[in-house]
């Protein structure tokens, strides 16, 4: 009997622990946003009634990728301008399925947001439709081109950044075999593949680039499977442009590194600095990352819209020159030689001496 009571007590403690843990993280999030608005309050002289919202794609706001990056940009913009998070300042709408895009867009309009971001090319149709029904609201589409006087299209020159990491891959490889794992075959992901291939070819014409598409942005198991077969066939550097699927590539690389620390396996991250994803014990399998500064673009467009200079109907391309595309700051795995070469090519791209292809031929 006593034993059973002990068991009950133990499970109660465990339950309480879980509950408290949940509270803890929650408080953290709360103070985080408090700090944000407080910091903004000090810095602003004029309090505007400008309201800005973003609609995520199905990846959600914590996707460790461009949705998250966009939200960080929006939070920063809110803090800089003394806006509050919520219906009166800035907020995000999470889409749980593709059918939610139109609903969320409409809800944002109905809550009188002045500017609504659609994050990701998946939202193109929904955004175009809602924008045409609501000419008084401004919209901005990230990663694709839409038409309409109240729509700004924001695209990135991913091929330029992919070219630079291609240079790194071409120089780092020992087997002259390099892999590319794409999410879903589409114009966007082809830009990554094309730039990467061109970058590899520029420094290492002998190297062979295998291009594979997982057919899914959220299937880590499939990513791991593809990575396993690539590494197994002699590939030693994989560049992924596959969102959550890419996490599987990291998993496989880390497993291999753990089994045999002397083996050369590299992953090149995408969208944000994926250094943390590559950490395995003392080693790190992240060679570098192609960073796409969605946050910079979001802040830029929001500021312009607030100042009455919204670039409606325009297509704005953020590339290396505009600080929209870069390689990550974590560069411990890159030798000085590689860094010099990357800097060299970066210069040439900025000067227009190299035209990086954006489509696979």
């Amino acid at each position, binding site marked *: 009997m006593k034993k059973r009571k002990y068991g009950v007590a133990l499970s109660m403690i465990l339950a309480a622990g879980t509950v408290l843990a949940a509270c803890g993280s929650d408080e953290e999030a709360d103070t985080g946003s408090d700090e944000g608005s407080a910091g903004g309050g000090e810095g602003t002289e004029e309090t505007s009634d400008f309201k800005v919202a973003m609609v995520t794609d199905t990846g959600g706001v914590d996707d460790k990728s461009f949705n998250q990056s966009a939200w960080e940009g929006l939070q920063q913009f809110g803090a800089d301008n003394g806006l509050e998070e919520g219906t009166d300042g800035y907020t995000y709408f999470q889409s749980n399925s593709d*059918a939610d895009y139109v*609903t969320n867009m409409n809800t944002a309009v109905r809550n009188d947001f002045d500017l609504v971001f659609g994050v990701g090319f998946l939202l193109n149709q929904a955004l175009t439709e*809602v924008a045409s029904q609501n000419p008084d609201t401004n919209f901005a589409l990230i990663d694709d081109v839409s038409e309409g006087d109240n729509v700004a299209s924001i695209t990135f020159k991913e091929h330029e950044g992919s070219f630079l990491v291609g240079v790194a891959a071409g120089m780092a490889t020992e087997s002259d075999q390099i892999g590319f794992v794409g999410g879903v075959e589409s114009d966007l992901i082809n830009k990554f593949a094309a730039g990467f291939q061109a970058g590899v070819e520029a420094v290492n014409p002998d190297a062979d680039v295998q291009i594979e598409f997982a057919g899914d942005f959220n299937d880590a198991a499939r990513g791991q499977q593809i990575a396993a077969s690539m590494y197994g066939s002699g590939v030693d550097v994989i560049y992924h442009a596959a969102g959550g699927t890419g996490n599987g590539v990291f998993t496989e690389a880390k497993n291999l590194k753990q089994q045999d620390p002397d083996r050369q396996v590299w992953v090149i991250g995408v969208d944000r600095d994926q250094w943390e994803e590559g950490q395995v014990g003392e080693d790190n399998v992240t060679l570098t990352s192609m960073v796409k500064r969605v946050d910079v673009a979001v802040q830029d467009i929001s500021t312009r819209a607030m100042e009455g200079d919204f670039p409606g109907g325009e297509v704005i391309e953020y590339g290396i020159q505009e600080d929209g595309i870069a390689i990550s700051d974590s560069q411990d795995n890159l030798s000085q030689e590689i860094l010099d070469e990357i800097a060299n090519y970066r210069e040439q791209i900025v000067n227009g001496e190299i035209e990086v292809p954006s489509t696979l031929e």
Partner: protein
Amino acid sequence: MFSQFNRWQKILIPVISVILGLLVGAIVMLVSGYNPIEGYAALLSGSLGEGFYIGETVRQITPYIFAGLAVAFAFRTGLFNIGVEGQLLVGWVASVWVGLAFDLPKIIHLPMAVLAGAAAGALWAFVPGLLKAKLRVHEVIVTIMMNYIALHLCNYLVRYVISDEQNTTERVPESASLKSPFFETLTEFSTMHYGIFLALAAAIIYFVVLEKTTTGFELRSVGFNQHASEYAGMNVNRNIILSMVISGAFAGLGGAMEGLGTFGYGFIHGAFSGVGFDGIAVALLGGNVASGVILAAALFGILKQGALIMPLESGVPTELVEIVIAIIIFFVASSYIIAYLLQRLKKGAK
């Protein structure tokens, strides 16, 4: 599901499950520092509070009814159709394809596109039905695998066959569209479309076929006991295939609603839409009867729609609704516990 319980229990168990699910959801909200009353109020006003939200909720309910009916139909005839998701996707693409390929008057074009969706779904379910009937391959395994084939085949068709290497197809012309300008104005530009009437009609067809026809009797009979049915002179194999085909047709129609109504085009899916899998839960909660499926689909539609607005109005994250749904399903699945408690309660009252 509840065949072993009496009529009263059949209704009570899902209702109690829903109440318990909402209660546990409220506790989770309390524990995480949110106000459950505000949370549920936001959920309700976000799904039924304004014309726009009602329209969106109805739109959300439509494919759930079809998916629920598809799962329920197979279930009533002793089969697990886990492939509703895939059948829905092929139905979606087929209906959009027919919508784009022909130029006909609406009175012919729209039914043709809708039926193409049903036919594609039926065809997709025919394969596992045939394998089950002829080779006794378990339909769960085949239907799950067919889901993946459907996903990637549909993506291929959208990108290379129906469109010219685009991420989405063109919009279907007005003559094949279920979109309703009347409902849209009525509900302030929601995406509500005529599909809900088709869904309700499908529920009636489901009821009539299964409960009022000889074929339905045979199908159910095979579901109860294959050997007895065979002994009674029924063609078991034919009934297995027929059951899967009808189930797939319901699923395909659900896809057509998305393709011709909600979206009006096909696009490359990065992942499954999830509607087909939710259909399993809808059928389970609805006790596999037509009226139950409609009610369960309505509940799911309200929850999913309200979940989008909940964070904005009350700060409660949308994931909470997933928790509530999971708990409801948990209680429905463990219906014996509730039935047992109900019995104890009765005895206690005496």
